[in-house]
């Protein structure tokens, strides 16, 4: 009788390649989604620096603006923005999977669970834009 061991020594084992995530489109999308969190973190840091500069008075803030005008920073912000969009959309679309809400004996359709996320996203973004742009 074969006995169970946590790492079966029997049989031929194929090692998973370091580049496994290039093997399938879905794997690549997954890795990009995971990677996107770095860009989310970058935006968070940038916002913290911005608040810090704001607290530091006008000269500190104009230094910060100068920093934002740097082409490298502009490019990285554009890339980050795309990744943050990707991050938000992929996670919003996955939310119905994690939440099996049942109403009246039936499962609430996926669109009704993902939908409010998008609505909140648009509303909050519009609110922030209004706050910043009204002056």
């Amino acid at each position, binding site marked *: 009788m074969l006995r169970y061991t*946590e790492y079966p020594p*029997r*049989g031929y084992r194929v090692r998973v390649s370091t580049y496994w995530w290039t*093997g399938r489109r879905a794997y690549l999308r*997954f890795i990009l989604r995971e990677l996107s969190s770095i860009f989310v973190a970058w935006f968070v840091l940038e916002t913290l620096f911005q608040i810090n500069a704001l607290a530091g008075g006008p000269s500190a803030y104009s230094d910060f603006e100068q920093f934002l005008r740097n082409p490298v920073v502009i490019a990285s912000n554009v890339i980050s923005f795309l990744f943050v969009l990707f991050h938000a959309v992929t996670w919003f679309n996955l939310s119905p999977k*994690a939440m099996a809400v049942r109403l009246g*004996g039936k499962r609430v359709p996926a669109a009704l669970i993902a939908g409010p996320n998008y609505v909140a996203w648009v509303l909050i973004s519009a609110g922030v834009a209004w706050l910043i742009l009204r002056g």
Partner: protein
Amino acid sequence: MAEQIALEITRYSPERDKTPSMEEFEVPLRKEWVVLDALNYIKDKVDGSLSFRWSCRMGVCGSCGMMVNGEPKLTCATFLNDYAPGPIRVEPLKNFPVMRDLIVEISDFLAKLSKVKPWLIRKKEKPISEGEYLQTPEELDSYRQFSMCINCLLCYAACPVYGLDPLFAGPAALALAQRYNMDSRDEGKSERLDVLSQHDGIWGCTFVGECTQVCPKHVDPAGAIQQYKLTAAQEWVKSLLMPWGGK
């Protein structure tokens, strides 16, 4: 001569070979033939030593899972015609040790499956004379999808986490645990929580989601795991707020 299609099949004999290799076979391309028919044709007519598992030929037993052109598939439900003109690459299920040709070693999964206690747990069994445990159609509906699993292990072959970390409990075992957790007749949730909420349990899952894509029975293991993460997180908060036991 009737139309032919080529199959490239993994061959491996633990007594003879150091590493697996590919062998090519030609089989008749028949409209109604699935990959499993082609394998049986080869075994009957060309090379009787070709080894593979199968039983029901109708997507029920779950034993014929293999990689077909790199995708985990039930070979009894995968038509040759869809891959014409070929060649079709047939390999053993990924992420499992290969024992011979297309046969993989699955005792790792079986051990994990029994760890999550996939059966009805009752605090106190009621005597048979009191009848069955009743359940409404809605209650049945809440876990029915997860109960469709045929243990074909296509989801394990699609799961990179299982490939990289063999200790991970894996999609089907976790989905089956959730199937019993959701069952209104079951009283074993807290017993399963200890196994499931470990690092090798639900938290090992990074939500790649491919298990759900490849599942031939639409079980949605990825969904089951994320739903369970939510439950486990709630339990954790509860245990913080009510350390004296709010179970």
